[in-house]
């Protein structure tokens, strides 16, 4: 399997990447780890004319503590995030999720920025960024902006990123009490249901991936939450695009969502 022909460009800075995007528009794709994009290109389902490699841009592969936040550079691999002591200590929920992405080899190459930009509705990160109220830092032709996680995912493989925008970092508020539960699809090991729960005081924030075409905050659960797992019954309230395949039809997927939300709620108590 071999991708269709394309031109390969390497960006040495964020601004260079942005100007390359500006130049090539829809014909271009950014690549960092490439573990979602390259297989799609080999199957010729994705056929960019220009591939812009942002992996070597300096400064995008570091994890820092900024006040009450942990900032993870877009080019950080899943392995790097998983092994970060800052992440393990201050946003352990991210560690929990990342250590369940793919396999060793995939974690060694795949990146947080790439995963979020690809927006696979069954990937693990969306649930976590949603539950943490993380901010996606992006830069584009119109400068820098910060997108709230809840505004970032617009649909299957669709995000709020503009054509010339690039994710530079993800900013997580520190989380003292958070958990990630995943029920994986047995072939791909992507999430059939992935649930992230963060507890703050008496309140809980719940992010759900895998269930709907768009990852979502389970606000019905959050509103009904009263300190135990019972609010899990509301896991799919108001969700009208529950996905269905031969591993999990709508009924079973909705059931699993409730089971996983319950586990998560019970775990953060």
């Amino acid at each position, binding site marked *: *399997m071999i991708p269709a022909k394309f031109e390969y460009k390497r960006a040495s800075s964020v601004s260079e990447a942005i100007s390359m995007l500006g130049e090539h528009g829809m014909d271009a794709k950014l690549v960092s780890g490439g573990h979602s994009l390259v297989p799609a290109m080999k199957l010729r389902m994705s056929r960019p004319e220009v591939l812009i490699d942002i992996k070597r841009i300096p400064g995008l592969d570091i994890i820092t503590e900024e006040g009450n936040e942990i900032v993870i550079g877009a080019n950080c691999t899943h*392995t790097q995030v998983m092994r970060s002591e800052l992440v393990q200590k201050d946003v352990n929920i991210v560690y929990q999720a990342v250590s369940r992405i793919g396999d*060793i080899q995939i974690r060694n190459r795949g990146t947080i920025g790439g995963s979020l930009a690809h927006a696979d509705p069954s990937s693990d990160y969306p649930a976590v960024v949603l539950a943490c109220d993380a901010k996606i830092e992006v830069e584009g032709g119109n400068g820098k902006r910060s997108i709230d996680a809840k505004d970032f995912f617009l649909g299957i493989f669709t995000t709020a990123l503009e054509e010339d925008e690039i994710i530079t970092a993800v900013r997580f508020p520190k989380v003292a009490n958070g958990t990630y539960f995943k029920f994986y699809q047995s072939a791909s090991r992507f999430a059939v249901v992935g649930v992230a729960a963060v507890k703050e005081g008496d309140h809980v924030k719940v992010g759900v991936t895998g269930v709907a075409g768009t990852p979502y905050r389970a606000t019905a659960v959050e509103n009904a939450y009263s300190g135990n797992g019972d609010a899990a019954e509301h896991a799919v309230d108001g969700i009208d695009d529950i996905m269905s395949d031969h591993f999990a039809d709508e009924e079973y997927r909705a059931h699993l969502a409730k089971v996983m939300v319950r586990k998560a709620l019970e775990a953060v108590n």
Partner: protein
Amino acid sequence: MQISMTINGKEYSHDVEPRISLAQYLRENLDLTGTHIGCDTSGCGACTVHVDGAAAKACTLLAVQVDGSEITTIEGMANGKEMHPIQEAFKENHGLQCGFCTPGMVMTAADILKNNPNASEEEIRHGLEGNFCRCTGYHNIVKSIQHAAEKMNA
């Protein structure tokens, strides 16, 4: 595009099309055919090599992406005639049958043990998540890695 890499300790430089994967580059340009292609989309792990010391699926990396890297393939695991302890353990424990997934298994095993020298059976099995074997039922692969760990830790 001109790329250069250190592969199994030797420097190489080639002009390649950007769409050529690292696995293809190793197999076609360098005749390092020990890196196998089983699914070509990062599912089966037969193509696993080390890129800058970490296991990666060479079918899903474009050669241009890893320009300048240090690559170790299965051909670079043995020290001359002396096999790596993991290779030896696979032979001792019948950790292979048809041999097709074996290079990937050995390379992944090396990554597992590098980062977790005392990996438990469960951790080894979990670590092999990205590598399919259709012959062994994994039993003797897990045993091989356990035995390799013992030898390497001794």
